[in-house]
């Protein structure tokens, strides 16, 4: 197998490497299907591979696990008779001949059991695969970062208010969909211990070299890995706009739990009008949900024990909601 292509740019190289990987995967599938490597050899080699793999790595795919089960289904009653001692092999061979009728009877039944288990697992695999296909067809697209130049940047109208609100925070403050870290840097300059997460690795890459604390993480996954009451402030901007009702409520539950007593939540979102306007970003058409009305945020946060302050944007295209978590809520956790 040989390729003569000499790619020119990074994107050419990315495409080239993706093609090479898919060619290798196709070759692996074809060779595996052909059975040209004896199953026992393949099983022994795969077992060697798995022996010191970490727990998470062993999970692999169900197909891979089944392959191991299939390869191990046959129990060989003809035991090896090699020996380092003189005459050992002859003795072992004699013992094997004498006991083969018995061992063979047992291994035959064990192999039958293993085959039945393997068949059941294959049926299960097919059913799970079928279910997954059906789910994929009905899947709600994951909520995207909804970021408009005019609403999500250092010159946006709500930024001063957000910074002022959080300037006195003594603990950690999280900004979600932090982009290149523009708001994290602004808060840090005010003496706030701020950091950010963003699910778009290409947006945060530069921050690696300027000391800004940014991570390539989804906000929900991130908050799940934070202790209760660990954060003094959370800024949700570009995140909640396109969420479905379920996603938004799950996020809100996490936010309430992770904020410290008296902690502050700042929510910036496009309004319904902004969502429908030509100034909305493309993501607005691709998300599974749509923005809540301002009054709904006030209601939801009030229900969760926040002291709420809401402010529509000057053009009515977006809004800001600030909630301070009451001590009684956190005390009851």
């Amino acid at each position, binding site marked *: *197998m*040989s*390729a*003569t*292509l*000499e*790619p020119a740019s990074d994107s050419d*190289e*990315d495409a*080239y*490497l993706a093609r*090479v*990987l898919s*060619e*290798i995967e196709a*070759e*692996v599938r074809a*060779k*595996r299907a052909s059975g040209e*490597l004896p199953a026992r*050899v*393949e099983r*022994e*080699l*795969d077992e*060697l*591979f798995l*022996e*010191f*793999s*970490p*727990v*998470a*790595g*062993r999970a*692999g795919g169900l197909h*891979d696990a089944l392959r191991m089960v299939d390869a191990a289904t046959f129990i060989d009653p003809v035991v090896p008779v090699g020996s380092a001692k003189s005459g050992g092999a002859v003795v072992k061979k004699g013992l094997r001949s004498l006991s083969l009728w018995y061992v063979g009877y047992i291994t035959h039944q064990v192999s039958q059991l293993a085959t039945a288990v393997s068949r059941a697992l294959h049926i299960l695999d097919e059913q799970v695969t079928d279910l997954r296909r059906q789910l994929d067809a009905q899947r709600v697209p994951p909520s995207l970062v909804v970021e408009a130049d005019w609403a999500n940047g250092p010159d946006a109208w709500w930024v001063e208010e957000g910074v002022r609100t959080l300037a006195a925070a003594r603990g*950690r403050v*999280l900004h979600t969909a932090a982009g290149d870290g523009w708001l994290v840097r602004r808060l840090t300059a005010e003496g706030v*211990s701020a*950091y950010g997460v963003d699910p778009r690795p290409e947006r945060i890459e530069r921050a*690696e*070299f300027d*000391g800004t*604390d940014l*991570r*390539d*993480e989804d906000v929900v996954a*991130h*908050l799940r*890995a*934070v*202790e209760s009451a*660990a*954060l003094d402030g959370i800024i949700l901007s570009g995140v909640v706009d396109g969420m479905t009702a379920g996603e938004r409520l799950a996020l809100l539950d996490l936010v309430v739990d*992770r904020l410290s007593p008296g902690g502050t939540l700042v929510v910036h979102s496009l309004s319904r009008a902004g969502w429908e306007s030509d100034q909305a970003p493309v993501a607005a058409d691709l998300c599974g949900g749509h923005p809540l009305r301002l009054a709904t945020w006030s209601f939801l946060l009030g229900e969760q024990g926040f002291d709420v302050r809401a402010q529509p944007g000057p053009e009515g295209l977006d809004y800001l909601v600030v909630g301070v978590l009451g001590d009684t809520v956190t005390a009851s956790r």
Partner: protein
Amino acid sequence: MKVAFVTPRYGPEVMGGAETAARQLAEHLVADCGAEVEVFSTCALDHVTWEDVLEPGDSELNGVTVHRFASDAGRNPDFYGLDGKLRLAPREATRRESQRWVELNGPVTNRLLAALSESDAQVAAFYPYLYYPSVKGIGHVPMPGVLHPAAHDEPALYLPIFRGTYTNADAICYHTIAERRLVQRIHPVADRPQIVLGLGVSDPAGNGRRGGAVLGIGERPYVVSVGRVDSHKGSVMLASFFATYKERHPGPLCLALVGPVSAEIPEHPDIVVTGILDEGDKWDVVRDAKVSISPSALESFSLVVLEAWQESLPVMVNAACDPTREHCERSGGGMWFGSYREFEAILERLLDDDDLRHVLGRRGRAYVDRHYQWPVLIRRYAEFLGQVIDRGRGTTGVL
């Protein structure tokens, strides 16, 4: 800036990823950033017994002040029984059991911790998470503490005692994003100030010999695997994979296993086990290889992958090892195998395809230049420590 490093073993005689990393960071902070660095360590060289071998007291090593303390206790033989029991279901261990696990594991170093508490260092860097000095030190000394976990997906990481080790840290320094993801999956520390730093690479310095001459194989082509030759590190698996590959693809290709040997590799006419080589010979062998292979599934960083890229060599890594796979995915400088079939297909393709090897090697080299050259890396680390110092100590630690 005055920085204290706390690590159970320290010195050029110590073979160990975490300990070498600590020494390199300490020495580069002194040499490149003008920092004042002191190290608090034991007299041990062996991480199995923690036997006191070196003299206790103060000394200086490459500009770093080293304070060594005899251990109050090394590894207790009862450790193995308890470890065997707890590793079956580490999450279910009680705090008392896991605390005892740490004490039996050793090295118990109360004098070291008392001296650290008296130090005027502005920040303490603990390396790695697993041992008594980090568990008992973080959150209990007057200066802010930075934890360098060097974590693997291993049963100990799940023991309840280590939750305090992580949550009491004022900041965490990870080797890779994969390590951060692993730690955050187990301990709730995502809000902690953190940095994904890794380690720097030194410039290749070969002796100018042909790699084949060092290995005694003349002009035969070869692939190389550098690191401890150990079944846990995947060396036995690699040797078996390679022997099978050679049965199915006869030819002159050799495999060179370079590093200290702690596992028996079956004799094979195409496999060369060198033992420890001096640095110059090692670089010569790496430079002339066709491919560098990292078979280990248990790496928290893997300098050898980066060193191969220093020489623009393509690499193959174990698909179950998140950190090395992350290096390959981010750089586009290598490929990963999750079975013998994949190993065979990738190796065959790499050996037959000069252009592919060239592209992978070049991208790997660019990745190393961007992220892992010492001047870039140590500046980021010094800035990070400065931020930790500015923020000061967090809450009082609890065990």
